[in-house]
């Protein structure tokens, strides 16, 4: 079976607690009166970090075959990046709307 014995349960617990700490940081940041844009950027970075840690460690991708990493991440990021083509039209919608 894929060798997933590298990490003991204790270290898994450490990783999960680490994720909880990141969530704590996110909450603290929320109440720091940042501008919406910087808060959004910070939250997205932290959430992506959590997701990356979660996928690599909790879901063993770090110990699986390299090809799995190079299949799931490019495919998902490809769609995530391309969906960003929406934003110019979202702002266009806000800027040129009839005020309704």
């Amino acid at each position, binding site marked *: 079976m894929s060798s997933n014995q590298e990490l003991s349960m204790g270290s898994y617990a450490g990783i999960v607690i680490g994720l909880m700490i990141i969530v704590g940081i996110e909450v603290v940041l929320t109440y720091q009166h940042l501008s919406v844009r910087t808060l959004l950027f910070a939250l997205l970075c932290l959430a992506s970090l959590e997701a990356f840690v979660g996928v690599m460690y909790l879901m063993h991708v770090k110990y699986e075959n390299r090809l799995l990493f190079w299949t799931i991440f490019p495919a998902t990021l490809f769609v995530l990046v391309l969906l960003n083509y929406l934003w110019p039209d979202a702002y*266009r*919608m806000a800027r*040129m*709307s*009839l005020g*309704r």
Partner: protein
Amino acid sequence: MPGKVFAVVVVIITLAIGYCVVAHVWWMPVDISVHGPNIDHQIEETVFGAGILFIAGQLVLAAFSFLYGDSKGARKMKSFPGGAKPLIIFAFVVVGIEILVLSFVGSKAWGSVYFTPPDPNSVRVDVQAGQFAFYFRYPGSDGKFGPLHPELINEGSQNFFGLDTDHDADSKDDIVTAELAIPVNKPVLLTLHSKDMGHSFDVRELRVQQDFVPGIVIPIHFTATQTGKFEIVCTQLCGLGHYNMKAYLEVMSQPDFDNWVKQQAAMQ
């Protein structure tokens, strides 16, 4: 035998298509706008470039089908000299050049419509598309458009734009017509907004086509160079009357336009 028949059929079809395109059996109407020639030039260039690729492709297919039919004797197979490399080079080079040319020249034509700012003193007309009719609004003598109140729209009493002439000073002199009249050789700025569905403002002769998107106002500008009566049609599916959603664009000389506006104002 079938290979030769296929080759002949393909050649006949290719020649027929070539004839239909070259002889302009179906072709664009004469252009009457300033930015039109750019677009026409772009279309003719694409017809020329893509046409050559089309004819070359079909003739190559016909030639191979003609030459390498099913000869009963067990002939020795010949593979294409150089394998696939020349094909890839051809694809990258020829199609690549065509892409660069088309996109570079094309951007100029596209830019002339969308990236050049409208002329400040152009004739401004507010166009509203609703389920199955266009209505046009001229600012009237004060040159300002009154605010729109969608809740006041009442087709029965011809209040198509939802103007509140009692309270809004600017709306009092706005002129609402079902026909778009514009002066010739003067820049025109249309602001397109939709009442309900997605519609589209398409005048073939003006080489202008722009969708109405409900919720936002889209400005387009052009200058007509010829007088005459042209048809505005809706090309975005908007429901059962889509096929009959049209209005007329009348390009007039400046004096005709002025007294047309006066005449429409009297009829409000």
